[in-house]
C-alpha cells in the first residue's frame, strides 16, 4: 500500500493562491504593479462628462436613501421568547407529519399525539414554538396575529386551496409575518416534466402572493410515513437561522401564547353550580412588551378580563447555558408541550399528571418504570438541590409530592399508582396554594374567594398535620420507595437551608404566616401561631415550617424562598461587619417576605389587620424588640441624650410601626462613618417622607372610612355614625399641588445659609466634590436599595456609577427587576396567572359583565373598508358582521357610508362593488392605522372565499354624523302666479317653522323656497317658486337625517364552546337569515311589482292652422281646400243606350273584324321590325368590310410610302457617304 505512488503535485494555475504567487513572481522581476489600475491608468478613469457623473451620483444617492428606514429599536430581550412557527394548510396536507418530523429532527424524540403548541430548543440561542393551524377561520385569524413564521403547506398534487389564500389575506391585514411555502405530495407526480411544470406554476403564484423570491420548500416524498430526513433537516436549518423583522403590532403589545392552562376553581363549586365563576391560570412565554399586573387583557375567543396576578416561573424549556460548543447536547434538546403531555404536566379534566425526569425520562418511561426513573433522576442531579429547586419545575412538583396523601382515588392514566397519588396531591396543593396566594391579591370584597381561601386555610391546617405524621412515619421507613427518595431529597434540602441560614425556618414561617393572614382565616391563624411557637425550636418542626411554606404557596413560594435565601446570605455578610443581632436580621426578613406577599396582593383591605397581627406576633417572638416597640409611643424625635445606635433603633421602630421595609439594612451603617447630625437629619427626613410603598400599593384610605362609618349600634336599631374627622378632612381637603413649607428655616442665620451654599455656582465646589465623594463611597457601601414593587434587593454596584456608561445596563436592569434574578436562575418562564370570575350567566345581577364591557368600550371607530374582490356578495348596512381588529374578534353592526364632496357622510345601503367605502361601528378602542378584516360568519364550512372585506381603521370619533337622505313631498292645492300653497309635507305649523327658508323643488325642476306656515290645513305652507306650478306638480324637499350607530358589540366566544363544536359559533343573525329560518317572506310593495305594460292607442286632434297664418303661407304649404266636384244634375246625365239584337250582332262583328285587323297589323309590325333588324345587321357588316378594306389599303399605301422614304434616306445617306469618301 505504501508503495502505491502518490499523485504528483500539480501547480495551481488559478485561485487566490496562484494569483498571489504570480504577483510575487512579478514583483521579484520588478514588473509588479503595486498601484491599482486607477493610479496606473488615470486617463481611463478621468471624468468624461460632468453631467453623467452628476447623474450617476444622484442615482446612487437615490438608491441609498431608498434603503433608509426609520430605525427600529431592537427591544428583544437577551433571551428572547421562542419563535412562534405556525404550520398552516388545508386538511390532509401533512401538517401534523411535518410537525412531528421537525420535532424529531430537533429533539430526536417522537411525539405521537400533538395537541396545542410544542416548544423545542432548536439551537444555542433559539427556541421554537410550533403550533398547527387548521382551517377553522377563528384559529387562522388568531394564529396569524401571533405568528413569527408561517410554514404554509400546499398540496402540490391539488394546487392552492382557498384556505391558503384566506390565510395570506389575514396575514396581510394583521402584519405580515415571515411566510415560507412548503410543497407536499410531490411524490404523486408520475412524470418528471409535469412535476417541474407544477412546481414552477405554484412557485410563481406563491411569489405573486407573498413576494417575488419567497422561499418555497419541496418535500419530495414520504418514507415510512415521514418526510425525508435530509429535507426536514434543511428546513430545520432554514428555520433556525432565519431572521425576523419585528412587527409593529406585536412589539408594541404584550401577549402570551398560552401553552398550558389550569382551572383552579374549586371542583366543589363547579359541582354545585356548573356556571360558577372560574379561576384559571394560564402559562406561557411573554412576548412583545412588558405585561403589567392587574392589566386588562383580551383572550381571543373568550373575552376581556383583568389579570389578577402575574408571576414568574422557571423556564420549562430553557436555552442551554452559555458554552463554547458548536452544537447542542442531547440533554439540551428540550421539548415542552404540556397540552400534549410532554415535558412536564399532562392535564386532564380534573387531575394533573406530572411527567418526572424531564424530557429525557420520557423515553425511558416505558422500559424502566417510575421508581427507577425517580432514582435515576436523583442520580443524575449534579447541581445542588437549591439550584435545582430554582431551575426545575419537576423538582418542584416532586417536592410537594412527598407531602401528598389525599385524593388517592383519583387516578391518572400515564403513571403508576403511587405517583399518581402524589401528583394529584401536588396538583391539588398547587391549587390551594394559588388560592391562598391569590385571594389576598384578588378583590378583597369578593366573598366567594374569601370563603374559598378560608376553606383552603382550614384544609391546609388539618392536612399539614397529617402530612407531617405521614412523613415522620416514612422517614423511619427505610425501604427504597419513591416516597422514600423524595423524603430524602426534602430532608437534604432542609439540612441545606438550616446549615446555611440559621433563621431560615423563622423566615419561612413568617412567610407562611403572612400568606395565612391574607386568607384572613382565623383558624388558620391559630394553627399557624402554634406553628410559630414551635418554630422557635429547630429540628423537625422547622422542617415542618419549611414544608408548610412550600405547601402553602407552591411555585411562588419557591421563588420567594430563593429570594429570602439570597437576602439572608447578604445579611449574613453584613452581620459580620456590623454588630447587629440575628433577631434583627430576621425582622428584616419578615419585612422582605411581607413585601412579597403584599406585592402580590394589591389592594388587600386587611393590610391594617395584618400589620397589627404582625406587631403582636413580633412581641411574642422577639421579646428583645418589645421594649423598643413600646418605646414607640413615647418616641421623641430628636433625642439628644441617646447615642446614634439608639437613634437608629428608633428609626427601625418607627419603620416597624409604619411597615416601611426600605433602607433598614443600609441605615445600620450610618453610625460608622457619618456624623450624628447626618443621622439625625436622615431620621427627620425619613419621618417627613411618607411611606411610599404603603401609599402606592397599600390600602386606599377610603375603605377604612367606610368601615369607620358603620361602627356602633344603638339598641340594635340605630347606628351611631362618628365620622372620623381626620379621614373626612383628608377625603375632602383642598386639591392643590403646592407644597407648603411647614417649618421654615431662619434664613438669616449663617449656618442655615451655609447649608445651601453649595447649591449655587458661587458656592464652594471643593466642598461639594468632597460631598460627592462621600456620597459615592456611600453608594459603594450601601448602594443596595429595595425595589418597592417587587421587594427585590438590588445590590449596590461595586464602583461609582458613571451614568453615561451604565445607563444602558441600568435600564436593562430596571426595566425588569427580575433580570437580576434571571442572572441567577438563568431562565424564567413568564407565567401569568389569571383569576377572573366571569359569569356563565351574563344577565344576572345588576351590573353584568357586558354592561361593564359596554362602559369600557363605548367608542365608535371609523374605518376605510373594501369588499374583498373574491367575496361573492356585497355587504349590507346594519347586517351584523364579524370583525377582526387588533387582538379581538367580535361581531358588530356596521354602517357603511361614503363621503360626499362637501364632507357629508352619506349612508350607503350596500357596500360598493369595487370601491372603498367608509364603515363605522361601535366597538373597542383600536389605534388608528390598524388593519382589520371582516367575515360574515365563523361557523361551518362556507363554499366560497370567507373573507368578506378588509380595510384599515381611520379614526375614532364619537361625534361622527352619518346621514341618510330623506325626501319630504307635498302637493300644491292653490296656485297663484309664482306663489303656491303646499300641503301634505308637514304635520304642524311648528314643523314648518323649523324649515322656513328651506329649498324645495318640483319634480319638473322648478325651484322654490318655503315661506311661511298657513293656518288652514295643518302643516300647509306658502312657498314661492321661480315659475308657476301646475296642480299636477309634486313638490319635494331634500333633507338629511342622522342615523345612530347601533351599540352592538359581541365578542366571538368560540372557544367557550364545548370540544368539537368550536367552529359552530354563531352570533347575531342577519335579518335575511332569520327570515329564511322562519320562512317569513317579506311583503313586497305592490307598486314595486312588475306588471304587463298596456299601451292605449293615442288619438291626436287634427291640425288647425289659423287663417292669418294660412294667408301668410306660400301656396305650396297652404292647405288645399278645393271643394269636391258637385253632383252632375239629372238633366246633364246621359241616358243609357239599349241596342237591338241586330245592332248587337253588327257591333260584335265589327269588334271581331277590328280585332283581326289589329292582330294582322301587329304581326306585320313585328315582321317589319325583324326585317329592319336584318337590314341593319347587313349594313353594319358591309360597313365593317368597307372599313377593313380602306384600312388595308391605307396600310399598303403607308408601307410603300415608308419604303420609298427609307430608300430616299438610304440614297441620301449614301450620297453623303460618297461625298464624304
Amino acid at each position: 500500500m505504501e508503495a502505491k505512488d502518490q499523485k504528483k503535485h500539480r501547480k495551481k494555475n488559478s485561485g487566490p493562491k496562484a494569483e498571489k504567487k504570480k504577483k510575487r513572481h512579478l514583483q521579484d522581476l520588478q514588473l509588479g504593479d503595486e498601484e491599482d489600475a486607477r493610479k496606473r491608468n488615470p486617463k481611463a478613469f478621468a471624468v468624461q462628462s460632468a453631467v453623467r457623473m452628476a447623474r450617476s451620483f444622484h442615482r446612487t444617492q437615490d438608491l441609498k436613501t431608498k434603503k433608509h428606514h426609520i430605525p427600529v429599536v431592537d427591544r428583544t430581550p437577551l433571551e428572547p421568547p421562542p419563535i412562534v412557527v405556525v404550520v398552516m394548510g388545508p386538511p390532509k396536507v401533512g401538517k401534523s407529519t411535518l410537525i412531528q418530523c421537525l420535532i424529531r429532527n430537533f429533539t430526536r424524540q417522537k411525539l405521537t399525539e400533538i395537541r396545542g403548541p410544542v416548544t423545542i430548543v432548536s439551537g444555542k440561542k433559539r427556541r421554537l414554538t410550533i403550533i398547527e393551524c387548521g382551517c377553522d377561520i377563528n384559529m387562522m385569524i388568531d394564529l396569524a396575529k401571533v405568528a413569527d413564521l408561517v410554514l404554509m403547506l400546499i398540496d402540490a398534487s391539488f394546487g392552492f386551496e382557498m384556505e391558503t389564500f384566506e390565510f395570506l389575506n389575514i396575514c396581510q391585514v394583521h402584519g405580515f409575518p415571515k411566510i415560507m411555502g412548503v410543497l407536499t405530495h410531490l411524490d404523486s407526480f408520475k412524470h418528471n416534466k409535469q412535476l417541474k411544470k407544477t412546481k414552477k406554476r405554484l412557485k410563481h403564484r406563491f411569489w405573486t402572493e407573498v413576494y417575488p423570491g419567497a422561499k418555497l420548500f419541496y418535500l419530495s416524498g414520504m418514507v415510512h410515513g415521514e418526510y425525508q430526513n435530509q429535507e426536514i433537516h434543511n428546513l430545520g436549518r432554514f428555520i433556525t437561522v432565519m431572521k425576523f423583522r419585528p412587527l409593529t403590532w406585536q412589539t408594541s403589545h404584550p401577549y402570551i401564547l398560552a401553552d398550558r392552562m389550569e382551572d383552579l376553581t374549586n371542583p366543589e363549586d363547579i359541582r354545585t353550580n356548573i356556571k360558577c365563576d372560574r379561576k384559571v391560570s394560564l402559562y406561557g412565554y411573554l412576548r412583545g412588551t412588558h405585561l403589567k399586573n392587574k392589566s386588562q387583557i383580551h383572550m381571543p375567543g373568550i373575552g376581556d378580563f383583568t389579570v389578577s396576578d402575574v408571576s414568574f416561573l422557571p423556564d420549562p424549556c430553557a436555552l442551554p447555558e452559555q458554552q463554547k460548543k458548536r452544537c447542542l447536547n442531547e440533554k439540551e434538546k428540550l421539548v415542552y408541550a404540556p397540552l400534549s403531555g410532554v415535558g412536564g404536566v399532562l392535564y386532564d379534566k380534573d387531575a394533573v399528571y406530572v411527567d418526572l425526569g424531564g424530557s429525557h425520562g420520557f423515553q425511558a418511561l416505558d422500559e424502566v418504570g417510575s421508581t427507577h426513573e425517580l432514582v435515576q433522576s436523583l442520580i443524575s442531579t449534579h447541581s445542588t438541590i437549591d439550584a435545582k429547586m430554582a431551575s426545575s419545575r419537576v423538582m418542584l412538583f416532586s417536592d410537594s409530592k412527598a407531602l401528598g396523601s389525599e385524593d388517592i382515588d383519583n387516578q391518572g392514566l400515564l403513571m403508576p399508582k403511587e405517583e399518581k397519588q402524589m401528583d394529584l396531591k401536588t396538583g391539588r396543593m398547587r391549587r390551594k396554594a394559588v388560592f391562598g396566594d391569590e385571594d389576598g391579591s384578588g378583590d378583597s370584597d369578593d366573598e366567594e374567594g374569601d370563603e374559598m381561601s378560608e376553606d383552603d386555610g382550614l384544609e391546609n391546617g388539618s392536612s399539614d398535620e397529617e402530612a407531617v405524621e405521614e412523613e415522620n412515619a416514612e422517614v423511619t421507613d427505610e425501604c427504597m420507595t419513591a416516597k422514600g427518595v423524595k423524603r430524602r431529597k426534602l430532608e437534604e434540602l432542609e439540612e441545606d437551608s438550616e446549615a446555611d441560614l440559621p433563621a431560615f425556618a423563622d423566615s419561612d414561617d413568617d412567610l407562611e404566616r403572612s400568606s395565612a393572614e391574607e386568607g384572613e382565616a382565623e383558624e388558620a391563624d391559630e394553627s399557624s401561631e402554634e406553628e410559630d411557637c414551635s418554630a422557635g425550636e429547630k429540628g423537625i418542626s422547622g422542617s415542618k415550617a419549611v414544608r408548610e411554606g412550600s405547601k402553602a404557596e407552591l411555585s411562588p413560594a419557591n421563588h420567594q424562598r430563593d429570594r429570602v435565601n439570597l437576602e439572608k446570605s447578604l445579611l449574613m455578610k453584613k452581620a459580620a461587619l456590623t454588630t447587629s443581632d440575628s433577631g434583627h436580621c430576621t425582622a428584616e426578613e419578615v419585612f422582605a417576605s411581607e413585601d412579597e406577599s403584599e406585592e402580590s396582593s394589591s389592594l388587600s383591605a386587611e393590610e391594617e389587620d395584618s400589620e397589627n397581627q404582625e406587631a403582636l406576633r413580633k412581641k411574642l417572638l422577639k421579646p428583645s424588640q418589645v421594649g423598643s416597640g413600646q418605646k414607640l409611643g413615647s418616641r421623641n424625635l430628636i433625642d439628644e441624650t441617646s447615642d446614634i445606635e439608639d437613634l437608629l433603633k428608633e428609626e427601625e421602630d418607627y419603620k416597624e410601626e409604619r411597615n416601611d421595609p426600605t433602607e433598614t439594612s443600609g441605615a445600620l451603617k450610618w453610625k460608622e462613618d457619618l456624623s450624628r447630625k447626618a443621622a439625625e437629619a436622615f431620621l427627620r427626613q425619613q419621618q417627613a417622607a411618607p411611606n411610599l410603598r404603603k401609599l402606592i400599593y397599600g390600602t386606599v384610605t377610603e375603605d377604612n372610612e367606610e368601615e369607620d362609618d358603620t361602627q356602633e349600634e344603638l339598641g340594635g336599631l340605630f347606628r351611631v355614625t362618628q365620622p372620623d374627622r381626620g379621614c373626612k378632612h383628608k377625603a375632602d381637603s383642598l386639591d392643590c399641588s403646592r407644597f407648603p413649607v411647614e417649618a421654615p428655616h431662619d434664613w438669616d442665620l449663617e449656618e442655615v445659609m451655609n447649608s445651601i451654599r453649595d447649591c449655587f455656582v458661587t458656592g464652594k465646589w471643593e466642598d461639594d466634590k468632597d460631598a460627592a465623594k462621600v456620597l459615592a463611597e456611600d453608594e459603594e457601601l450601601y448602594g443596595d436599595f429595595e425595589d418597592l414593587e417587587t421587594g427585590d434587593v438590588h445590590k449596590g454596584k461595586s464602583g461609582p456609577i458613571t451614568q453615561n456608561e451604565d445607563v444602558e445596563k441600568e435600564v436593562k436592569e430596571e426595566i425588569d427587576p427580575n433580570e437580576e434574578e434571571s442572572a441567577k436562575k438563568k431562565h424564567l418562564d413568564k407565567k401569568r396567572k389569571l383569576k377572573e370570575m366571569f359569569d356563565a350567566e351574563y344577565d344576572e345581577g345588576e351590573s353584568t359583565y357586558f354592561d361593564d364591557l359596554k362602559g369600557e368600550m363605548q367608542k365608535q371607530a371609523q374605518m376605510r373598508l373594501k369588499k374583498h374582490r373574491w367575496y361573492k356578495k356585497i355587504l349590507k348596512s346594519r347586517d351584523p358582521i364579524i370583525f377582526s381588529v387588533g387582538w379581538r374578534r367580535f361581531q358588530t353592526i356596521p354602517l357603511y357610508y361614503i363621503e360626499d364632496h362637501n364632507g357629508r357622510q352619506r349612508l350607503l345601503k350596500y357596500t360598493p362593488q369595487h370601491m372603498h367605502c367608509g364603515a363605522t361601528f361601535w366597538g373597542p378602542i383600536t389605534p388608528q392605522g390598524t388593519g382589520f378584516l371582516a367575515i360574515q360568519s365563523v361557523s361551518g364550512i362556507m363554499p366560497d372565499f370567507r373573507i368578506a372585506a378588509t380595510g384599515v381603521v381611520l379614526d375614532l370619533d364619537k361625534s361622527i354624523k352619518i346621514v341618510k337622505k330623506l325626501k319630504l313631498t307635498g302637493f300644491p292645492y292653490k296656485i297663484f302666479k309664482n306663489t303656491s300653497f303646499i300641503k301634505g309635507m308637514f304635520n304642524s305649523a311648528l314643523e314648518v317653522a323649523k324649515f322656513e327658508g328651506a329649498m324645495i323643488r318640483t319634480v319638473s325642476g322648478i325651484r322654490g323656497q318655503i315661506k311661511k306656515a298657513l293656518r288652514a290645513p295643518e302643516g300647509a305652507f306658502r312657498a314661492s317658486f321661480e315659475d308657476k306650478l301646475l296642480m299636477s306638480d309634486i313638490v319635494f324637499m331634500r333633507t338629511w337625517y342622522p342615523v345612530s350607530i347601533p351599540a352592538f358589540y359581541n365578542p366571538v366566544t368560540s372557544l367557550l364552546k364545548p370540544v368539537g363544536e368550536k367552529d359552530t359559533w354563531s352570533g347575531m343573525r342577519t335579518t335575511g337569515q332569520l327570515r329564511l329560518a322562519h320562512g317569513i317572506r317579506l311583503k313586497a310593495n305592490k307598486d314595486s311589482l312588475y306588471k304587463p305594460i298596456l299601451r292605449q292607442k293615442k288619438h291626436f286632434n287634427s291640425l288647425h292652422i289659423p287663417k292669418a297664418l294660412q294667408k301668410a303661407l306660400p301656396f305650396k304649404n297652404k292647405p288645399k281646400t278645393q271643394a269636391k266636384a258637385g253632383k252632375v244634375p239629372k238633366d246633364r246625365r246621359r241616358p243609357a243606350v239599349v241596342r237591338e239584337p241586330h245592332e248587337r250582332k253588327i257591333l260584335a262583328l265589327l269588334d271581331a273584324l277590328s280585332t283581326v285587323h289589329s292582330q294582322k297589323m301587329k304581326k306585320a309590325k313585328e315582321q317589319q321590325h325583324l326585317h329592319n333588324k336584318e337590314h341593319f345587321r347587313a349594313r353594319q357588316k358591309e360597313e365593317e368590310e368597307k372599313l377593313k378594306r380602306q384600312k388595308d389599303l391605307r396600310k399598303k399605301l403607308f408601307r410603300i410610302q415608308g419604303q420609298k422614304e427609307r430608300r430616299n434616306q438610304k440614297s441620301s445617306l449614301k450620297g453623303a457617304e460618297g461625298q464624304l469618301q
Partner: protein
Amino acid sequence: MATQAHSLSYAGCNFLRQRLVLSTLSGRPVKIRKIRARDDNPGLRDFEASFIRLLDKITNGSRIEINQTGTTLYYQPGLLYGGSVEHDCSVLRGIGYYLESLLCLAPFMKHPLKIVLRGVTNDQVDPSVDVLKATALPLLKQFGIDGESFELKIVRRGMPPGGGGEVVFSCPVRKVLKPIQLTDPGKIKRIRGMAYSVRVSPQMANRIVDSARSILNKFIPDIYIYTDHMKGVNSGKSPGFGLSLVAETTSGTFLSAELASNPQGQGAAVLPEDLGRNCARLLLEEIYRGGCVDSTNQSLALLLMTLGQQDVSKVLLGPLSPYTTAGLISKPQVGIRSASRVPRAH
C-alpha cells in the same frame, strides 16, 4: 367581579383633578362618591364643575354623570380631542389649577391643543401661570415636547377675587415622549423673577424687587427680577401684586417659589417688602429641598415618566409633596409600576 376592575371608585373630592386626569389618560371610568357629603354645602364646587366642563371640552365622547346634590360623580372618559378651545375658569381658583391638568393631558391630544383660559392668573392657592411658564414648560421640553406652537402666553393678568385674566396655552401633540435622566440637579447659576402689580401703584413691584434681592444677593449675584405692571384692560378686575422667583441651575433644571398679596377685602394688607423677603425665603426653602424638579411639578414629571416609552426615566426629587404622593397612589389606576428609590442623602 368585573365591575371593580373596570371602573374605579373613590370617595371624597380630594385629588379630584388627578383622578380625572389619570382616568382620562388610562381610559378607565371613575366614580367618585361622597364629595363633601357631610359638608354644610355638599357637592361639587364651582371650580370643580368648571374643571369637569373643561375636560368635556377637550375630550370627545366623555360621559359625565353627577347626581342631584353633586356628591357623586361618574366620569367615563372619551378620547382626548384637543383643537382650539376657550374656557372661562372659575375665579375661586387660579388658572394654574386648570393648567396643571392641561399640561398633563395636552401632549396626548389628537389635535394640537390651543386653549384660551380666562380667570385668575395669580393667586395664593394654586401655582401661578408665571411659575408654570417658567418651570413646567422647560420640564415638558425635556420630554421632547417642544416646537414653535408650544407656548404659554399671559395676555391679561387677573387677581382674585375679580379675576379677568387671560392666558393662551398651546401645545403640540407628541406620539412618544423621550425618556429623561434628571439625576444631577447642578448648581444654581441664575435667579430670575417676575414682580407683577395690577391696579396698584407701579412702585410696588420695585419695592418687592429690592427686598427680594436683599436676601438672594447673599447667595448669588446673577439675579434679575422683571417688573410687570399691567394697565387698563390687561390688569383684570381686582388689585394685587406678587412675586414669582425661579432659580435656574447649570444642568437646566428650574426651582421656583412664589407669593401673592392677599386678595382685596380678605386678610390684612401685605407690605411689598415683606412679600419680597418671604418669597425669597421660600425660594431658599425650595433650594434646600433640592431635586431636579421643583415641588409643584413633581407629579407632572412622574406622570410623564410613566407615560413615556418603555425605557427607564430617572429623576431625582426632593421630598415629595402631598399632591405627588397622591399621584403615586393613583398610579396603579393607569397600571404602571415604578421602582422608587428613596434618595438617602441631602
